[in-house]
Every structure is written in structure tokens, then in C-alpha cells.
């Protein structure tokens, strides 16, 4: 694509297997630390490599990609972490919780139970700094996006769309159904790394009360 980037496509579906291959390629390129490569952006099923057109050749990068994928050293990938994320569901923090419950003809409590059940896989970070694309929601919770996106979704909002769920690390526009909010910070540009989560990590949500959120915020202020 263009004179300064290549996209390596490793499948065409949301699947942990495809995403694991993306991670292998991503980590492989990162470790190779090729001079001239300016950016590696892992996606659901692809890795974007942005390079300096006066220093690198797409052919050279393609053969490196082949070598990385053939090397069965995948067991040496860094161990992903599992992060537990507290969420206040509903009311002013989750303005779409009731709509989602009505849509599925279940109670808001059942929505919370379904949302806190799985261990989610972090497929990629994108959209805004630190925004994790998490999958997959239970089928019973698969919900369309809002017809009209919100102009400003507050920081910490937890949303769902189709079979994905995610967390808004910074206030931004957004079209996902907002069911709750977390006091946990997912992005701080002064930290290294700046994001709490990386692709390949795991996330579990657990419900907390409004009071517990306030206590949590005071403790971390």
C-alpha cells in the first residue's frame, strides 16, 4: 500500500487463532528492530508495517514476515497479562443498559451477568489511545451500534457493539452502546507503556457499586 507501508493479512475473521498469528508477526518484527521501520500496527487480522521508503524495500519486509511465521518459536512470545476491570453498570454511567436489556428481552441484571462472564481477548488497540477491542461477547448479548453516535462519550465508558466490547480511555465521539463505566485509567501518555492493555492480553469485568467507584477514585487520586 503506497510507497511506505505494507499490510500483512493473516485471515479474514475475528478469531483468536488469526489474531495470535498477527501477534507472532508483530512481536517478530518488533524484536528484529529493522532500521527504517517507523511503526508497527497490529489489527484484528493484519499487521501494518510503516517504513522509510528510502531505507527499506517491501520485498525485504515480506521475506522477513515469511521467516517469522515459519519460525515455530511462538512459545517464546511474552506472556499476556490478565487484567480485572471494575465497572459500575447502568444509571448515569451506562445510559444504554436498559435499551440493551429491552433489545434482548432480558433484565439489566442478566446483561451484567452476561457481560462479566467471559475472559475477553484484547484483539487490538486502536480508535483512540489505549482503546481495547475486546471479544467476544456471548451471542445473547450481540447488539447493534447506536443509530446515532454520541458526540462525546465520557472517559472510562464501557461499550458494546455486535460481538465486541471496549472501553473509552479518553473522552471521544462513539457509536457503541454504553452500559457502564470504569474508574480504571487505560491511557496515560506520561506512563511507559502509555496504555494499560496490549494486544494479546486478557480482560475480565466485575461489577462494583457507585460507592465503591468513588472509594476507588479517592484511593487512586
Amino acid at each position, binding site marked *: *500500500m*503506497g*510507497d*511506505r*507501508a505494507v*499490510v500483512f493479512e493473516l485471515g*479474514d*475473521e*475475528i478469531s483468536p487463532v488469526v489474531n495470535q498469528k498477527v501477534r507472532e508477526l*508483530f512481536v517478530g518484527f518488533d524484536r528484529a528492530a529493522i532500521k527504517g521501520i*517507523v*511503526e*508497527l*500496527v*497490529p*489489527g*484484528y*487480522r*493484519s*499487521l*501494518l508495517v*510503516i517504513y522509510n*521508503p*528510502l531505507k527499506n524495500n*517491501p520485498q525485504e519486509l515480506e521475506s522477513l514476515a515469511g521467516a517469522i511465521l515459519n519460525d515455530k518459536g511462538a512459545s517464546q512470545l511474552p506472556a499476556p497479562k490478565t487484567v480485572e476491570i471494575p465497572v459500575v453498570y447502568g444509571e448515569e454511567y451506562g445510559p444504554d443498559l436498559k435499551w440493551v436489556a429491552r433489545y434482548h428481552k432480558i433484565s439489566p441484571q442478566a446483561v451484567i451477568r452476561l457481560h462479566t462472564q467471559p475472559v475477553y481477548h484484547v484483539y*487490538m*488497540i*486502536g*480508535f*483512540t*489511545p*489505549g*482503546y481495547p*477491542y475486546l471479544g467476544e461477547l456471548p451471542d445473547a448479548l450481540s447488539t447493534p451500534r447506536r443509530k446515532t453516535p454520541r458526540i462525546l462519550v465520557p472517559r472510562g465508558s464501557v461499550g458494546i457493539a455486535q460481538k465486541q466490547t471496549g472501553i473509552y480511555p*479518553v473522552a*471521544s465521539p462513539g457509536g457503541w452502546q454504553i452500559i457502564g463505566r470504569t474508574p480504571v485509567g487505560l*491511557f496515560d*501518555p*506520561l506512563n511507559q*507503556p*502509555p*496504555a494499560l492493555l*496490549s*494486544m494479546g492480553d486478557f480482560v475480565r469485568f466485575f461489577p462494583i457499586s457507585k460507592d465503591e467507584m468513588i472509594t476507588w477514585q479517592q484511593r487512586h487520586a
Partner: protein
Amino acid sequence: MAATACIKILAPGLQTSVQDLGRFGHARFGVAHSGALDSFAMRTGNLLVGNPEHEACLETLLMGLRIEALSDVLIAVTGADLRPMVDKRLLKMWGSCILEKGQVLGFTQPASGCRAYIAVGGGIKVPSVLGSKSTNLPSGFGGFEGRMLQAEDILFAASPHDKRFEKGCTLTAGDIPFYPNRWNLRVMWGPQDNDFKRTARDTFITATYRASTDADRTGIRLDGLPLERKEDMPESILSEGVVSGSIQVPGDGKPIIILAETVTGGYRKIATVISADMPLLGQIKPGDEIAFRTVSLENARKALREMESKIQRLKKKPLLASDNSNVFAETAQLRKR
């Protein structure tokens, strides 16, 4: 040594922010590159005031910015011609000069291009965040307090300017870019050009598009003939990394040129603007016409080498004595207005 207050913002104009070459290496965490959209103008401005080419500058949009010098400041204005005036005199662009303490520089009207750059000798003192002084406007960090500049903001110089450049330095006239109202942008196909109908690919390289008012540092939405996907192709794809300059096509078929404030997306990209034409994207303004032309990788590289050689020529240019004799050369012309 203590930093010197150098510039006070009297009026911020439509949008003025601190930008350097951008923030790279953090896209894996969703961090956009930000940075000067017209990197050629920005790098040139820095070299004209004796800075390293990557130093942070001010980027200002179309009109309205007014700044006052709080000390004698070495500056260079490059990029869009927004009729920069100092005390009712038109300032000559693409050259360095001293803005004396108390003088006011104002950008009065867009004559050509969209974004002007003000390089300050010694650089602008803002903290480096994730390796860059650029402002990430959508997410509110970096640059000057993570935001656009406002009236009454005071900028400090990072270090004293290089006295040798006080004589003034100018870019060779032939190397100054031209910003038209009708752009011919060079592109290479892909990555998803094969997902579009044959007719859509033909349309893309023969039709003329118009830059809409729906434009910011994230992207420029174009009006014109819609580009149709093949029948079996759904509207969106699984989200993936995008490089700035890629031309993505959402459901309505109207292309969007991606700029510097996003690194991922979920639409198909029909083509990507070549590196040598990237600086031009920052100069496209609403209403401008755009035509696309495909080139080979070889020609794309050749064009980039040509652009880089202009920068190299400027780096090697000897400082000429009294080079700034005609800093206000266009004064006579201005009085006629």
C-alpha cells in the same frame, strides 16, 4: 539558563497548535502520529532559523492568528500564504528575520494553501510527551498543555537562537512549493483496491473530487462520484492499521483522505498518496479540486528523493550577508489593496 518569554498569543485564529514531525512508535497503543501536516514547510522553517529540522513549530489554519514578540525573536513563516503582516507590512515568507520586541505578526487572509508554519529560533519550550512535542488535539495531550493555543498564552523559547541566522536566510525561490486550488495528487493503488468495481477504479483516477468543509487534522472528506465496492463486499472490514495518506471509502462511497490523527480504521482503502505528496495534503482547503494519478513505486521514490534533495540543499546553503534586505519587499503591492 532561564528560558525567555518570546511570544504572546493575541488571537489564536481558527486553530493554532504546537507541532513537530510527529509521535512515532506508539501506534500499537492507538496513539496517532499528529505532527505538522505539511512537514516540508515545517522542516524548511526550522532550517531557516537555524534549528534542527524536527524542532516544534506553530501550525496555524487559514486565518486569524496574531502573535506579539515579547523579546527579539528569530522567526520564519513557511507553508500557506495567509498574508502575514508585521505592523501593516507584508512579511516575506520562506525566509528568516527578527520579529522585534513589541512587534505584532498577524495572519490576515488565506491567499493560497491552508496551513502556515511559524518556526522560532531556538525552538518552542514544551515538554516532550512519548518522544514528541506535537499536540494530539483529539486526545488532549502533548504540545502546549494538550490543546490549541488561546489568547494570552505565552510561549517560551527552548534555547537562545543561533545569532548567525539573524542576517536572514531564504529558501531558493525554485524550491518554494506552489499550492494551487486544483491538486494533482500522486497515489499508488491499495491495499484494498481489488475490493472495488473496475468502474470505481476508473472513476477514481478520471473524476475530479472536491474537498468538503468536513475536514480537520484527522482527514478530508471529498465530494464527488461515489466509488462502488464489488457486490459481495460488506461496508466495513475488520479494523486495522492505516497509514496517513490512505484514501478510505466508507459506505456512501465518498472517499476520505486520512491525515495525522488516527492510526486505525474499519473501511476499505482504495489507494494511498505517495510520500512526496504528503506535505501537500496539509494545504488542501475546503472547495479545492482534487484529481488522482497513479505512479509506480520507482517514480514515488524518485519524487521523494527530489523533495529530500531540496531539504539537503537548504542544509548546505551558506548564510548570506544581508540576505534579509527585502523581507518587506511586497509592501508597495500591499498598499494598493
